[in-house]
């Protein structure tokens, strides 16, 4: 009993920090989501308005459009990162000349701040001065202009995200692949299994927890992408790249509509939790059932 009390005392600073910086802001935003508050309007008071923000949200075409493009962005970006990340992880498992330097270069995008990544890609894709439109025009006669083409803008944001975050997937999958035991693979080869069968029936089930953890991290990151996209496209053209993060930013800061912005934030958090939970249940939980 005595040692238990000591444990709580030792934990209390951590719990206090978690409460102050985790729980308090969350509950404040949740509370604000049920209020109308525009501190710069003629009436700056915080007024309780029940579910009015959520009632507005479910009919808000701008929000629903943001949700649609965000889902498309997340699916394309995360799947591409997983596939390329796995292939790179397999490549880096082999020995080849210059492997260490390739791994270092490959990891460089990870250490860049998102706003810098956005600036670099902005410079590279600006039609008059960018290297990418120049090369596409020279090689294929394709006129890339992300300020005019919605599809091009969407594609470039996905490519930028893939470029930025694939190294993270590679690193986690290398860690998972390195820790695999050799015996099941040798036995499968003796039994005559081909590479595809080994991948689907041995490798993938054994690295599934690492894959799910990686997808969680990338999913949460992709759902809250703001700065890169805001820098590169500003959410345009039109609303082609107005992802949920960008939508919340534009709703809260230029319009100073804090109550409604909080409601959108709460729903985005809710969707993130639901997607991650469904993913966890779909991929890992049934295996734990006794």
């Amino acid at each position, binding site marked *: 009993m005595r040692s238990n009390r000591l444990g709580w005392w030792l934990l209390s600073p951590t719990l206090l920090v978690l409460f102050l910086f985790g729980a308090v802001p969350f509950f404040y935003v949740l509370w604000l989501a049920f209020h109308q508050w525009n501190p710069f309007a003629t009436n700056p008071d915080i007024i309780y308005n029940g579910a009015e923000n959520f009632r507005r949200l479910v009919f808000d075409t701008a929000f629903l459009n943001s949700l649609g493009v965000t889902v498309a962005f997340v699916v394309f970006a995360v799947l591409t990162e997983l596939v390329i990340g796995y292939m790179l992880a397999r490549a880096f498992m082999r020995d080849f000349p210059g492997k260490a330097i390739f791994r270092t270069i490959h990891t460089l995008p990870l250490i860049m701040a998102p706003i810098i990544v956005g600036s670099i890609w902005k410079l590279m894709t600006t039609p008059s001065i960018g290297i990418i439109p120049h090369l596409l025009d020279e090689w294929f006669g394709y006129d890339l202009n992300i300020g005019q083409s919605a599809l091009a803008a969407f594609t470039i944001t996905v490519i930028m995200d893939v470029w930025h975050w694939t190294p993270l997937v590679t690193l986690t999958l290398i860690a998972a692949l390195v820790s695999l035991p050799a015996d099941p693979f040798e036995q499968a080869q003796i039994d005559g299994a081909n590479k595809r069968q080994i991948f689907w029936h041995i490798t993938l089930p054994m690295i599934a927890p690492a894959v799910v953890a990686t997808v969680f991290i990338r999913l949460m990151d992709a759902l809250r992408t703001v700065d890169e996209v805001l820098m590169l496209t500003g959410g345009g053209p039109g609303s082609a790249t107005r992802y949920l993060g960008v939508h919340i930013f534009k709703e809260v800061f230029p319009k100073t509509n804090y109550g409604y912005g909080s409601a959108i934030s709460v729903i985005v958090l809710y969707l993130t939790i639901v997607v991650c*939970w469904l993913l966890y249940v779909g991929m890992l939980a049934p295996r734990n059932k006794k």
Partner: protein
Amino acid sequence: MTEIDNEPIDILEEEAQPPAPPPVGFLPIETNWFDRLFISLVIWVAICLVWLRFIEPLGADLYIAHAISVAAGLYIIWKG
């Protein structure tokens, strides 16, 4: 000395009993009460959002959605 005192004590009596199997609910995964509370809250929000979008415009009050959600939540926590 009484008759009861002469009876041998079965020290393996407690170990011999097989552990009670965990109750199996209708959910496809193994859960504890907190998991089921979490699932109930997630479903509550989903029901309310769907209600606000599709059913409330027809005239049904949001309190009905809350009542349905609470009933569903209690059922999930007890039977899930």
